[in-house]
């Protein structure tokens, strides 16, 4: 009987989705692991980026004016940091934006970093990402070290605080990040509607 109960528990737990088992992203704690397919058809496993100097996970959108205001800045950040052993992953978790939309947008905006489609917003739920753009910076041990905005304004002429750059520079220099969280307005991630919605 005991063996049967154990077998039942193992089976049920094994069927539970990863999102239900993993903890949400918490500052200075190991970030939730995930695997997603990129728009290039390749599978990207967060764990394979372990031992990078940093990993920048960016929740982005194709039709959000706030996210789109940052397209060029994201490309510039990638160009400035990928040579310094920093990985960038763009994630589109919007249920309202198709894989074709995401592919066309990434091509049009000349994103050189991998863009992943988060079908069913599983990773957005894991990280409790709410808006686009929203950034999570992990260190080489995949510990969450920074969460929030890219900089203080979607209007490039009003930018005077480069929060993401500051976080990356501190990580690369082995220093403590002075501002670990920074908020900004953004477009709500359009999640799959649940029965309760």
């Amino acid at each position, binding site marked *: 009987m005991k063996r049967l109960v154990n077998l039942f528990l193992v089976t049920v737990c094994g069927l539970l989705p990863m999102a239900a088992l993993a903890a949400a992203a918490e500052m200075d704690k190991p970030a939730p692991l995930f695997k997603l397919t990129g728009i290039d058809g390749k599978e990207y496993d967060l764990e394979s980026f372990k031992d990078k100097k940093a990993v920048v996970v960016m929740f982005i959108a194709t039709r959000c004016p706030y996210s789109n205001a940052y397209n060029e800045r994201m490309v510039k950040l990638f160009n400035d940091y990928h040579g310094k052993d920093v990985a960038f992953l763009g994630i589109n978790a919007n249920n309202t934006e198709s894989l074709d939309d995401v592919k066309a947008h990434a091509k049009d905006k000349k994103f050189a970093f991998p863009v992943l489609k988060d079908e069913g917003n599983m990773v957005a739920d894991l990280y409790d990402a709410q*808006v686009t753009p929203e950034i999570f910076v992990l260190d080489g041990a995949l510990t969450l070290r920074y969460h929030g905005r890219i900089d203080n304004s979607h209007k490039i002429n009003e930018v005077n605080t480069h929060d993401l750059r500051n976080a990356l520079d501190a990580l690369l220099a082995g220093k403590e990040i002075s501002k670990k969280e920074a908020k900004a307005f953004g477009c709500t991630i359009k999640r799959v509607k649940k029965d309760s919605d």
Partner: protein
Amino acid sequence: MILHLCGRIFFLTPAARLAQVWRAFFPLPFACCLLFFACAGGRGGSQSVRPIDEEGLHRLIEQARGKVVLLNFWATWCDPCVEEFPALVKIAGEFQPRGLEMIFVSIDEPEDIAKKVEPFLKAQGVTFRTYVKDVKDDEAFINSIDAKWTGAIPATFIYDANGVLVKNFIAQQKYETFAEALRPLLPK
């Protein structure tokens, strides 16, 4: 006709001349007033939208002390906000007569007021106060409303008559959710 009027005025006494001019031009300011109100009425119930900063918004909330306040943040480019809007217009229709104060703040750009915000509000038949955020520091603005707010919109905050924040909704809500939160705070 003007020449005829001028000719007649020339031969009158000063007092009679003044009376004649008054009678001739009195309808002008009256017509201007009529034109102004006609234009205002032609906005379909919406009102002019003004930019607002952090200090101005908190002053508004403070001035509404004694009333229950529903503060909503939205934008024309935000799909869930646009989907939520009819529920809020319905809330206004039902709860404003019971004393609810509604303050709406759009996250659109101040330069989009005439082009995007006002036409949207006109189409929705909005009668409550609406502003467009005009601040330099978004993070300070977000935290000044609620430290738990991430900045995601739509976001709705309900204050009781003492000005205390009693409820926050950080996502799209249905009419019934707002109504359930408001009913215990307002007289029947």
